[in-house]
């Protein structure tokens, strides 16, 4: 019984929420609006040079993201020489593969990319709670497709999205070199998979 209690409390500790583990203080205020503006301009072509590291291998390419309407984004990846590797549409909750090169047509990769770009292009997350730390960041908690995310803002500007599981960080999406709602650099890091994506606006 004693062991059971210890195990249970250990389990509870292990399952502690991310805010609790990181000593985040909950704030009660009106429903806040957090906006991810980085792919929100219909008139912009968002073009990024990408460096991808996956399991000790590295390769590059060009990411193209275009907003075509409300909750409607097109995401295309080509090689530097212009050969199309994949072409996805994100329309509301629908995900459509317009094209994928047969060599990379792998479910695990597609699901990963789908998740990353759903997060990156989601403009108005539905905020459940908000927290703050001793620093300047405000953490806004939301859920996207059964995963918990924290949107970190400083001076009302989004600079990081954290995906968490229990108390642990799973992935992060970092926006830097920000100017007029345009992120000059975006880094995507996955903790449990050896995949990093570095995007640099061109």
């Amino acid at each position, binding site marked *: 019984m004693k062991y059971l209690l210890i195990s249970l409390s250990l389990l509870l500790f292990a399952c502690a929420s991310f805010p609790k583990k990181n000593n985040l203080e909950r704030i009660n205020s009106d429903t806040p609006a957090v906006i991810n503006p980085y792919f929100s301009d219909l008139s*912009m072509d968002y073009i990024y*040079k990408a460096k991808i590291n996956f399991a000790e291998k590295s*390769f*590059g*390419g060009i990411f193209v993201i275009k907003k075509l309407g409300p909750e409607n984004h*097109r995401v295309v990846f080509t090689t*530097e*020489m*212009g050969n199309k590797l994949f072409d996805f549409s994100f329309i509301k909750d629908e995900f459509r593969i317009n094209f994928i*090169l047969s060599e990379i047509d792998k479910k695990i990769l597609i699901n990963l990319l789908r998740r990353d770009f759903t997060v990156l292009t989601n403009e108005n997350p539905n905020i459940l709670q908000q927290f703050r730390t001793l620093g300047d960041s405000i953490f806004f908690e939301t859920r996207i497709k059964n995963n918990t995310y924290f949107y970190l803002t400083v001076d009302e500007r989004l600079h990081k999205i954290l995906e968490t599981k229990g108390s642990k960080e799973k992935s992060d999406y970092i926006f830097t070199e920000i100017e007029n709602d345009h992120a000059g650099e975006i880094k995507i890091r996955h903790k449990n998979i050896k995949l990093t994506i570095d995007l640099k606006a061109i």
Partner: protein
Amino acid sequence: MRNLLFLVVLIAHTSLLLAQESKMNNTEIAEFKAKINETSKATTTIQSNFTQYKHLDFLSNDITTQGKMAFKVPNMVKWEYTEPFKYSIIFKEDKLTINDSGTKSNMDLGNSALFKKLNQLIVNSVKGNLFQDSDFTMSYFKSSKYYKVIFIPKDEKIKSYIASFILFFDKEQADVMEVKMVEPTNDYTRIVFSDRLINKPLDNEVFTN
């Protein structure tokens, strides 16, 4: 009456277009091929600047990149992008090496049989040595400024990726001015060459990444 007028205007326009670009006849095709072969045989090195336009229908503007291309017989090719990022890819003895702003690798998502074929095509087209390729159906056109050859792949796998290759040749020198790869969706990649240097000595060192 209005319909008739419309028809007349339409026919006038169509014949204007035809006047700008017309199909070559068999004699012209033979002459053109001979000219290209002559140029190709005399070529040992090529150095050229290029501008690449990636056209995706849903974008407001084409993605424009620039760089330098170097070729040396028999089959060394370097594509060096300089703007807006530094990236070079070398094809040498059927091997591919990449230098992506300092990150070196010999692995590329595009390192598939399909892309090797595509590169081989571009190289052959730069050399002007494509007409022996039985993998394509070719059709020949001419205008006052250029010769144009459209290559349609016979292989279904390539065809599902690239619907056609279009090469534009300079009328005077008979060398390639432009390569256009059209995808089945009508998105395309266009590479336009400029400031070409032919047979200027080129060290093998150039082809190392």
